[in-house]
């Protein structure tokens, strides 16, 4: 941490705040029926994992995740206007309005997308890693995985494949203790998920406090270095989701209100970094306020952009089924 520059920390702070505000706005927009449909999985609470992990990467590296993907896209630097337009199903969205909130992607950012089938993107991550080795680059892939997804066959087959072929994949489990409404104790025989690395003879990157962006960055940076040269690593990042599974989830957070409260009060990733910054740099509050303000403006801009953007047409409906 000694070597982290102030600007770096501020940039992480900015990204986390931006994600939080963006997600909060999406939640509102959903209630206002500006974002529609049945799916909307907010990243609020997870910010430090996404931001800490992606800040360990080069732009030539690769990122892929599941449906809880807006925060990841933002951390990867994808234009918030285009992300918001996609949430609203607009032509100007990252996926032309055809993918929706679960399928944000940006080829130019090597962000290979969010995927809605639990586990479905994991072999894709292996395949992207395979291409990196095939092309003899030293690029790596960061693939996020939900805790509950680690029970799925895709996880097993993909991680094993990545190990036998020494693929440059950093597998990051975002362990928010639950998949939809099912607690990890009820779905995983092994609740310390990083230990699943043993089943593949894989480098175990351990458990990291996923609310501490600095800690996440450190662990992922080491893993990335290892992956570039040697092979895959499995990391478990402990985190929490603030807004239920998705917008259709109406009960979980009531059921677990105490736990939620505890995380929000004492383990909020933005607050943790803020405290660190305030302790370390006198008079930084102003800068933090400015960041907050700029982020709010950016989210508002994105919202307007989305609202004003045109909806897709019949031409869009029938295009890109095939190349």
């Amino acid at each position, binding site marked *: 941490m000694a070597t982290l520059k102030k600007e770096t920390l501020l940039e992480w702070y900015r990204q986390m705040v931006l994600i939080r505000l963006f997600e909060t706005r999406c939640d509102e927009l959903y209630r206002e029926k500006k974002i529609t449909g*049945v799916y909307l999985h907010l990243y609020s609470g997870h910010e430090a994992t996404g931001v800490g992990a992606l800040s360990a990467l080069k732009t030539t590296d690769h990122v892929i995740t599941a449906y809880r993907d807006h925060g990841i896209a933002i951390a990867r630097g994808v234009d918030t206007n285009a992300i918001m337009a996609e949430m609203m199903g607009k032509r100007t969205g990252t996926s032309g309005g055809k993918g929706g909130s*679960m399928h944000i992607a940006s080829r130019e950012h090597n962000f290979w997308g969010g995927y809605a089938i639990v586990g479905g993107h994991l072999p894709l991550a292996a395949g992207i890693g395979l291409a990196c080795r095939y092309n003899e680059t030293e690029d790596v892939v960061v693939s996020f995985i939900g805790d509950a997804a680690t029970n799925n066959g895709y996880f097993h087959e993909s991680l094993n494949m990545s190990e036998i072929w020494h693929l440059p994949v950093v597998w990051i489990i975002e362990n928010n203790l639950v998949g939809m409404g099912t607690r990890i104790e009820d779905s995983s025989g092994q609740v310390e998920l990083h230990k699943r690395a043993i089943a593949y003879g894989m480098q175990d990157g351990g458990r990291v406090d996923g609310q501490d962006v600095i800690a996440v960055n450190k662990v992922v940076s080491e893993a990335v270095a290892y992956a570039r040269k040697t092979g895959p690593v499995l990391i478990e990042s402990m985190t929490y989701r603030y807004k239920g599974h998705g917008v259709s989830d109406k009960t979980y957070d009531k059921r677990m209100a105490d736990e939620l409260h505890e995380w929000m009060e004492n383990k909020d990733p933005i607050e943790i970094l803020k405290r660190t910054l305030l302790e370390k740099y006198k008079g930084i509050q102003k800068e933090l306020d400015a960041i907050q303000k700029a982020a709010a403006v950016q989210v508002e801009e994105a919202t307007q952009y989305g609202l004003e953007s045109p909806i897709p047409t019949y031409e*869009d409906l029938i295009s890109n089924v095939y190349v």
Partner: protein
Amino acid sequence: MAERNRPMREALRMALREEMLRDEKVFVMGEEVGIWNGTHRVTQGLLEEFGAKRVKDTPITEMAIAGAAVGAAMMGLRPVAEMMTINFAFLALDAIVNHAAKIHYMFDGQFRVPLVIRAATGWGDQATATHSHTPEPIFAHFPGLYVGCPSTPRDAKGMLKAAIRDDNPVLFTEFISLYSKPGPVPDDEDFIIPIGKADVKREGKHVTIVTYGSGMTWSTHAADELAKEGIECEIVDMRWLRPLDMATVFESFKKTNRCVVVEESLPHFSFGSEIAAQIQENMFDYMDAPVKRVSAMDVPLPYAHDIELMALPSTEKVI
């Protein structure tokens, strides 16, 4: 017979509950069927009433859910396994088609697989390309399996009960778009709609509409519209895609000599293909016109609401 108006999800729940009360061996398993009360709230309240032994939340493991249900069924239990949506059942295709549907045959009758796999199907409201399939015709391709898909709460109850009581594996799909639609449901705890019986849902003499599930919605509206112009549609709700009750279709066709097939599924190698093929094969001399097919467009379903609806069938397309 006493009956009450209920949405389809409640009719399904009734069937589950009654069968669980009737037979200790009936139990429910699947993702979020318990504490969450079911993603589509079909299993709501069952955990509380029957406890964790009879209502089992599972990990997100479609292959193992279907496969474990097969094993339990072979042992004489009567599992009702839920696939949260049929899209995820793609991951269980092998367990369903190559295990559930083959075991009775392959071991020449030594084992039975009295299993029901329930799955929500069809349009899911901007659920996008991977989450919007209507693939029951694909499953109906394979012998050894029955495939049922109700269009009304009444049918939902009677068909699901039939499926649970039957000794063969049944894939039972439930349209998301129909879960909330109410309709009369008999109280009778032995109300059964036998496997493989189609139903003439509306009588008419000018044209036969053959459909199932959500297709009933568009078909009924279209028939209402056409009635205004004096065209009387007869609507055959197939109810089961396997076995396929073509006798009922043929009977209607002999009267109308015309047919439109309506389905939410994709156009090729699908429900409409089979119905049209069988009609021309068996009713050739009764045909006044070719069988027309109305289905979803041949594209993946997109997210954006307006173009999503364009891709789906509609009353206008049926007309």
